[in-house]
């Protein structure tokens, strides 16, 4: 067996904290049936539920009567969870997105973002209208735009406007690969690529952007939350158009305005997510339309930790599990609260971390490092097979870990994710990574004669045949797949992991971006409310109620 450098049973510390006084490898335990009161958060729920009932005269949270005819939760230990890699222990309830402001803000920050090119508008101004565009006019334009984008008037008289304090998270910055132009713009308006990224990545990104200039637009959280993702381009385009009129002294109704509007709404726009088919009934900038490759660019672990591709990948797993499992599938597409329990297994207690670092070290030892494994089926089978066996053995050797991941779907996702990520790192190929995932699923199912819920009988039993194909109707490059890819469209415990598996090859190779350099640069912005380089740390802050979100309404509601 390979010499393991970093696999140090990373989950053991969490097991000892969760199951205090117990041997993590013991097969037996005493089930004390302490009920709800063993959990601080459940006690808080009970108290709050009673208060709500008194205030409104209508029953609410009443688990002692309503759960299983009088048998409440907590017949076994109600565990805490460590947000992997953070050392912060939280209660499971704190990881439901309703109870976690950081989780809400992560999705808000994606949904309210749109990237709009300036080149088409500048061409219209210069060539069609004969106006001069200089760094000075661009600075003035951006000054007006940052006044207008939150919802302020710039042209007409007697207009309603939004309150600046309610929209303080709304702003627009620009970026370009042209250092000379960037230097001439006011610093407050520019995303400094060379400061935000490692030198090699910065050079590659600037070369990719070239002399073009792009606006990273973030409309107010409160707007996109009240409306939907489709609003982002409309809100943005209206304010962009009005700003051009004001900044370049245009006629409000002249035909050239239509060109600016067309550029802002269609021709020069990068939506964060594609519009979905009519049966999904969702506009653009909704989670189901985010391509996995784009998601790998939104998450910024690789920028902050370029030499730790495992950590960078695990941050994508966490962010993707939260967005795609808990919010998209769990609430947009389904209902109830169960999806959180599935999803959190992938980013708590360092279990997936341990398995993935094991795989990374196995690859280093056997093949000489990331990206050095031969691109063969045998190599995929070897890497994914070894990691699957290792992961299954950890669940067997440490019954507390098995009890931690008490659902088959949790285990299947975690084992297959470690296998797929390891294969991705080894081969530098996203489809090979996905293929490793599917071998893992077959091995898991045959070894334990069980897998996940019914959904795992669907995609995970046919993935062998489509994961290495890119022909239409048969498959697709991993980076271009997404939550609405046919086999992936309704199955918890997969999409966040897939997003990480298709991003991992790029992180290992230290590519500057996964699929879109513009998205990579936009989400590197430290002014965003959510820090996309540290999703797990941010979720932990949300869980312990230390994350300050945007879009709050306390200014316009009665003080309590």
């Amino acid at each position, binding site marked *: 067996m390979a010499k393991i450098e970093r696999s140090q049973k990373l989950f053991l510390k969490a097991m000892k904290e969760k199951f205090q006084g117990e041997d993590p490898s*013991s*097969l*037996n*335990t*005493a*089930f004390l049936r302490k009920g709800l009161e063993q959990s601080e958060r459940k006690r808080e729920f009970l108290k709050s539920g009673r208060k709500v009932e008194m205030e409104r005269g209508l029953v609410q949270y009443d688990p002692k009567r309503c759960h*299983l*005819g009088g*048998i409440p939760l907590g*017949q*076994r230990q109600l565990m805490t969870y460590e947000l992997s890699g953070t050392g912060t222990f939280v209660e499971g309830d704190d990881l439901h997105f309703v109870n976690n402001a950081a989780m809400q803000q992560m999705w808000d920050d994606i949904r309210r973002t749109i990237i709009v090119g300036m080149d088409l508008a500048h061409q219209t101004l210069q060539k069609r209208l004969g106006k001069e565009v200089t760094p000075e006019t661009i600075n003035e334009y951006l000054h007006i735009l940052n006044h207008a984008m939150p919802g302020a008037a710039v042209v007409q008289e007697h207009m309603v406007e939004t309150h600046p304090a309610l929209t303080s998270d709304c702003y627009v910055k620009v970026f370009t690969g042209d250092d000379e132009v960037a230097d001439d713009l006011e610093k407050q308006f520019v995303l400094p690529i060379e400061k935000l990224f490692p030198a090699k990545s910065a050079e590659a990104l600037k070369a990719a952007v070239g002399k073009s200039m792009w606006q990273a637009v973030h409309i107010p959280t409160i707007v996109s939350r009240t409306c939907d993702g489709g609003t982002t381009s409309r809100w943005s385009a209206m304010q962009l158009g009005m700003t051009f009129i004001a900044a370049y002294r245009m006629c409000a109704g002249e035909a050239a305005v239509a060109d600016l509007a067309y550029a802002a709404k269609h021709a020069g726009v990068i939506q964060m997510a594609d519009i979905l088919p009519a049966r999904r009934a969702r506009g653009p900038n909704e989670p189901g339309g985010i391509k996995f490759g784009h998601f790998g660019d939104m998450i910024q672990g690789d920028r902050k930790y370029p030499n730790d591709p495992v950590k960078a990948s695990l941050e994508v797993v966490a962010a993707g599990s939260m967005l795609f499992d808990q919010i998209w599938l769990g609430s947009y597409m389904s209902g109830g609260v169960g999806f959180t329990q599935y999803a959190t297994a992938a980013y708590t207690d360092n279990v997936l971390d341990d398995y993935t670092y094991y795989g990374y070290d196995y690859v280093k030892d056997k093949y000489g490092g990331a990206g050095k494994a031969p691109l063969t*089926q045998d190599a995929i*089978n070897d890497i994914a*097979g070894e990691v699957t*066996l290792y992961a*299954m*053995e950890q669940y*067997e*050797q440490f*019954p*507390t870990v*098995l*009890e931690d*991941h*008490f*659902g*088959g*779907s949790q*285990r*299947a996702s975690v084992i297959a994710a470690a296998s797929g990520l390891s294969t991705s790192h080894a081969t530098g190929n996203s489809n090979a990574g996905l*293929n490793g995932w*599917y*071998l893992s699923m*077959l*091995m898991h*199912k*045959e*070894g*334990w*004669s*069980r*897998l*996940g*819920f*019914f959904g795992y*009988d669907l995609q995970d039993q046919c993935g*062998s*045949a*489509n*994961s*290495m*194909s890119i022909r239409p109707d*048969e498959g697709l490059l991993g980076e271009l797949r997404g939550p609405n890819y046919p086999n992936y469209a309704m199955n918890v415990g997969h999409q966040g992991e897939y997003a990480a598996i298709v991003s991992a090859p790029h992180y290992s190779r230290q590519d500057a971006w996964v699929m879109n350099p513009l998205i990579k640069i936009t989400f590197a912005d430290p002014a965003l409310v959510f820090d996309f380089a540290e999703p797990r740390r941010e979720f932990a802050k949300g869980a312990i109620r230390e994350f300050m979100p945007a879009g709050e309404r306390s200014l316009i509601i009665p003080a309590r």
Partner: protein
Amino acid sequence: MAYTPQYGPGSTSVAENRRKYMNPGYKLENVRSATDEDLVLIMGHRAPGSAYPSAHPPLAEAGEPNDPMRKLVTPTEGAAAGDRVRYIQFADSMYNAPCHPYLRSYLEAYRFRGVDPGTLSGRQIIECRERDLEKYAKDLVNTELFDPALTGVRGATVHGHSLRLAEDGMMFDMLQRCVLDQKDGVVKYVKNQIGEPLDRPVSVGKPADDAWLKAHTTIYHSMVGTPYRDDEEALEYIKRIHSLRVKYGFMPKEA
């Protein structure tokens, strides 16, 4: 040439047990004797001795259309009588319970007619006509497929298959449907499969010892049983299947 099922690969006792249990030619060993009434009580679908509620008239009285498929497929006893479709559901501990979800579905498909198995990680359900169900349930509870401590008949709130065992060796059950009687060492169901209290306890025998469980189980386990890693034949076969599915996903032309 007649097809001879191979049932599955593997060179270990786990693989051999799987093949045996799936093979309808292998007679499952009876190890307990729960009565018809016991099983009706545990399943909780009807009162013992009561008539079978029906979903439709008996087929003989239904005036069925002239349909070649109906002539080809003989109805089961329950279907002919017009019984309701009801279920029995099991939770199997990963610590060497004899039977496990996918194997249950496979063996039920090989051994029983007119059944609809459903497979999850923590439970496996089989649905069929009620009087057929009662017949099949006897095979599933009275034979080597069942262990009183590690196999649970659980219609809802099945949580337990992956949890550590209680100090008395029983698989966790939130509803405590069955308990180990410390006086006689016998496991007794005191609630039916959806947790309604029974009028009388139903005994399902003493838990098997570790050696029997290890010899009869169908799950690989590196701590309490047969390590998966040791079954090279099974692992090689799975990788071969995966590789061939990849290859034939592209429909290659063979030389």
